[in-house]
């Protein structure tokens, strides 16, 4: 067994050396798409390059990526309930207060990241992650989604991001234009709408991933 481990390590070392050599053989100057991106920035509707790539130039990737996130949730829900953690004790007043203070601030910061994404680092995913953390915090404090919100309202919120993105993406099609081809005059607004819905959906999805099971599941095994 020891010989086998030794061999494996040797092979991986060789792999590392080979890959390292390949990386070092690259020229010192980057040959990326930066000039193309900067050249088209004025038509993108935003002024921050990464956001322009994520939601305009390569928006199709982002659309599919949101489908991946939704899919992970569907996958976990289809597992039919995870083993419950041990019953939770009282959160105590200190944690309760911490949550009461942090959650609103998290919401404001998520909104800020969404807003700033148009011209500076930030954007829907970062904002959604912050929002998701608020959801996790609430769950850790013992809060649960009310029953009347756990069915359709939750499901609609979960898919809203993908659905709105799909609608916005398909809008140019009847006019004979391409998928996701925004009119440069409205690109900024459309991107903001897509991002706003995406933020909420991503946040709720991440929080639901943490929760684990479909809250409408009657009897988790």
């Amino acid at each position, binding site marked *: *067994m020891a010989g086998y*481990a030794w061999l*494996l*390590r040797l092979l*991986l*070392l060789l*792999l*590392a050396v080979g*890959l*390292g050599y390949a*990386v*070092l053989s*690259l*020229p*010192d*100057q*980057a040959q*990326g*798409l*930066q000039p193309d*991106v900067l050249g088209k920035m004025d038509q993108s509707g935003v002024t921050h*390059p*990464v956001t*322009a*790539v*994520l939601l305009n130039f*390569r928006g199709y*990737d*982002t659309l599919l*990526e*949101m489908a*991946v*996130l939704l*899919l*992970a*949730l569907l*996958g*976990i829900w289809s*597992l039919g309930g*995870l*083993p419950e953690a041990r019953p939770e004790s009282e959160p105590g007043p200190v944690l309760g207060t911490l949550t009461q203070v942090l959650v609103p601030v998290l919401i404001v910061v998520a909104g800020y990241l969404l807003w700033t994404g148009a011209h500076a680092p930030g*954007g829907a*995913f970062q904002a959604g992650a912050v929002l998701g953390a608020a959801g996790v915090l609430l769950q850790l404090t013992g809060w649960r989604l009310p029953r009347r919100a756990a069915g359709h309202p939750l499901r609609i919120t979960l898919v809203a991001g993908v659905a709105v993105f799909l609608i916005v993406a398909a809008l140019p099609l009847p006019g004979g234009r391409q998928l996701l081809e925004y009119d440069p005059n409205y690109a900024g607004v459309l991107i903001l709408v897509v991002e706003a819905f995406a933020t909420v959906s*991503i946040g709720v999805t*991440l929080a639901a*991933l*943490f929760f*684990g099971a479909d809250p409408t599941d009657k009897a988790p*095994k």
Partner: protein
Amino acid sequence: MSVPFLYALVGIGLFCLGFHGLIVYDHLLRKILAINIMGSGVFLVLVALAKRGGEAAPDPVPHAMVITGIVVAVSATALALGLMLKVQAATGHAVLPGKSRD
């Protein structure tokens, strides 16, 4: 060698370390960590090499790709953790059955 290449090499190192961990360790949680570390390595290569060439602002395309990749990684991790719990519930162990590679 410049700073971007340093980080790119670290990325390669992480990729190989994670690969090693994925093969060698049996516990599923460790395998999931290993996959995540491998992923971080790949992301590091993508982002680091975008900064080649010194002073100019780096290429934004790999940054966007990595953000997409991080979302995919989180989704996969969450699904894997859920599946791991179900495996443990079904078999009593959070390891894959069969020929154990020690």
